[in-house]
């Protein structure tokens, strides 16, 4: 939330239609993403009720739990879900490419992508993963062999979803909010139906009218995972009862279909809208990170990797946190450099500026701190109309070359002088094309697409006593495998 996006919201109110807050698409979209709309039973921690799932808009598969309180039926549901998801996920493991690096390695050419309606969907996928990954196929409460495998994959995907810029498990409302500002609050944007009503109102209606109509639970049931309380009381209760007496899930099937199908249509509408935007420059590179992680997880599971423990050890938690921060930092920077509209947010905040180059001193050489010989350190002067809130010494990145390090030397009035520190070749003078020339329109920002460096952390077995000492590696236990799910 920034003054820019708030202004866009105000504009949306005035025009009656959502306004763009991005000019390019910042999420990866697979050719055939797996859309997954799960529903849960109200009041329970993680009792699945049903789901609509599939990669073909015309052919979704409806899964259901006719009596959501029955543990065996829940596991049957999970096994059925695994029948859909596992072949899809594991299908990507076979095709790999060799990545040119210092040590070349194999990476899957593509990876699975799950789309859920909202953040609730991501959280529920995580809970389903948590409640199934420890299960065993033998012992007191055996489950189908596919269930714990699916649990591990859902855990993996939900974990990826925490990394900024990952597109492995995407919440549709978040993806849409990244590109459009509606005339309602961000809280109301969590409802897929009203958000889409603002972005693409049906013919003859404007955004607010369509959004109001989309609040009717009869025509636009909630996108899950919670169902509408009225649906629960007036339809679902009776449908479950009918199943209890007749043994036929027909009534529940119809009931759930009525709740899920409208969302299914909306999900694919969202996919189409996002596809309408050209892909941003760094999406490919971020998707490669997703593919890297998918490749690693595939190999780990193939080696019989244990399910992730209930809690992280101190070192792995610190690593994870550092990686999450670095992913976020890199993502913010990449998004801004990819998209002038996103960059405007930083320009308004004074962390970036754009302007015309009015002078270049390419011959300047100084002895940099810590060095003995003079090196080229050219100065570039830019005239900008932006409210710059940076001070001399701050390091900036240029939109011309995101690897080039520069720093501010002076700011006087609307003139900013920056010193270029690298990426100029090895010669005594800067290589041709390595510097902007007078008349160029350039943009500099205090944003680092590199994401910074992970702090040095000890190995797990060297965890200091202050952090509980070396953690016991997680070993699956009988207790975890037989955990109650009531």
């Amino acid at each position: 939330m920034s003054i820019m996006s708030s202004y866009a919201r105000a504009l949306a109110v005035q025009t009656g239609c959502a306004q763009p807050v991005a000019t390019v698409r910042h999420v990866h979209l697979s050719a055939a993403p797996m859309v997954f709309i799960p529903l849960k039973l109200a009041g329970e921690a993680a009792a699945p009720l049903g789901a609509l799932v599939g990669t073909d808009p015309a052919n979704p598969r409806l899964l259901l739990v006719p009596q959501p309180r029955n543990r065996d039926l829940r596991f049957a549901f999970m096994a059925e879900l695994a029948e859909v998801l596992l072949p899809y996920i594991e299908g990507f493991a076979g095709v790999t490419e060799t990545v040119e690096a210092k040590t070349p390695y194999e990476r899957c050419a593509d990876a699975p992508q799950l789309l859920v309606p909202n953040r609730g969907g991501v959280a529920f996928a995580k809970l389903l993963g948590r409640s199934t990954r420890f299960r065993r196929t033998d012992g007191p409460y055996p489950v189908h062999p596919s269930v714990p495998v699916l649990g591990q994959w859902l855990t993996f995907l939900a974990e990826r979803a925490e990394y900024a810029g990952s597109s492995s498990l995407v919440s549709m409302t978040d993806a849409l909010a990244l590109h459009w500002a509606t005339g309602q609050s961000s809280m109301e944007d969590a409802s897929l139906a009203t958000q889409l009503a603002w972005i693409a109102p049906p013919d003859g209606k404007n955004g607010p009218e369509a959004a109001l109509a989309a609040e009717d639970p009869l025509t636009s049931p909630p996108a899950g995972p919670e169902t509408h309380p009225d649906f629960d009381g007036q339809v679902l209760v009776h449908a479950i009862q009918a199943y209890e007496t007749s043994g036929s899930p027909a009534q529940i099937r119809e009931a759930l279909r009525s709740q899920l199908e409208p969302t299914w249509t909306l999900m694919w509408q969202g996919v189409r809208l996002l596809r309408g935007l050209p892909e941003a420059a760094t999406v490919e590179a971020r998707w490669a990170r997703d593919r890297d992680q998918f490749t690693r997880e595939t190999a780990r599971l193939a080696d019989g990797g244990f399910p992730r423990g209930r809690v992280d050890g101190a070192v792995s938690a610190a690593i994870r946190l550092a990686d999450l921060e670095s992913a976020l930092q890199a993502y913010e920077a990449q998004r801004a450099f990819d998209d002038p509209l996103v960059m405007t947010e930083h320009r308004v905040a004074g962390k970036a500026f754009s302007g015309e180059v009015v002078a270049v001193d390419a011959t300047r050489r100084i002895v940099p701190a810590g060095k003995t010989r003079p090196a080229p350190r050219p100065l570039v002067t830019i005239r900008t109309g932006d409210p710059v809130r940076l001070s001399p010494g701050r390091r900036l990145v240029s939109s011309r070359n995101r690897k080039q390090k520069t720093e501010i030397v002076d700011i006087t009035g609307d003139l900013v002088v920056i010193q270029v520190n690298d990426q100029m070749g090895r010669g005594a003078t800067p290589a041709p094309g390595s510097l902007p020339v007078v008349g160029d329109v350039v943009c500099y920002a205090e944003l680092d697409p590199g994401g910074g460096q992970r702090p040095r952390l000890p190995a797990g077995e060297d965890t200091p006593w202050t952090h509980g000492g070396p953690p016991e590696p997680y070993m699956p236990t009988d207790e975890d495998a037989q955990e109650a799910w009531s």
Partner: protein
Amino acid sequence: MTRLDTLRGPAEPLDHNARTIAALAVNPGCDRRALLDAAGVDKQKTAVHVGFPAPFGQSPFAITRAKSFDALVKANGCAHLLRLLRDTLDLSISEASYADISDVGGNDDHHVRHTRTRALLKRAATDGDGAGTLFDHPLLKLTVAGHEVYLEPAVIAFQIEGRFHIVEIKSFAVIDDQADAGQVAAAARQSAVYVHALRALFAAEGLDPERVSHNVVLVCPKDFANHPTATLLDVRQQLAALERQLSRLPRIDRILDELPLGITFDLETQSPDEVSKAVATVDARFAPECLASCEMSLFCRAEARDNGSTDMLGRAARDELGGIESVPAVLGLADGSRLPSTEQLEIAEQLRYVRRIYTEAVA
């Protein structure tokens, strides 16, 4: 008949509960909610009457689950609860007594129950024989906006060695020692209301209010099972916030003074249109958060939309826009068609700049 009774009409007044007071304290600037609650108006029915039924409700499955969990924790003289109290509070409770104050000899009159609650709690506080004592459904009273209200109790007060704890039973799960942050926060806000009310009762009885602990015992199902687990929840922060907000609540008298004479929200005699107009005479402070907690929220949202108020964009957006009240004003300042007042000079300059580069980037 007081002025508040006239406002409500002949209908029975509704009780406050911790949820409504917590919601009130979350939005202390809302005169409308303060007045309707003080008058005991049934907001749910009012909202339906004026054509804006509340956007939320409770699923029968959630209610059943909450009840069965509550019953499980309290079964066999609160056996589960005592075990949990021994474990979490590290108490050596040898024996415990249990008193239910949901009625007094079959009489569930508020006044009677409150008097009984006071008597029992005072005796426990002064005798303090060291034994654990549980008081279920204590009926507490609280002064809200200069008006006394009863608190519908959904908690247990637990006394051990002269110290009192509020025990709150919630049916959301704690999975791997983590629960949904939003639900824990809501539970903490509600518990703070009880702690506050219990302390008020102690103060009124001449007892030390500090004997009521700021650590609340939160009982929830553990992981995916129905098995209860207990956690101590420090509600000092929520308590401070609640006290601050309650003190900021406009005095009901002040609101009443500003109302036109002869106004009433009586649903029996007034048409929907008349009730709408009557409700509209009291200022509301809409925020999208209301949609999750206040029955009147859709009515207020429609009003905010009609007025082009920036409230409908959310508090964060409104703050980003410098607190300017209406959307036309924001856009007018941005395109220069409206002249800023002295205090709007800074935000107007920002908005003009935002408009310029936004238009540039979109084009």
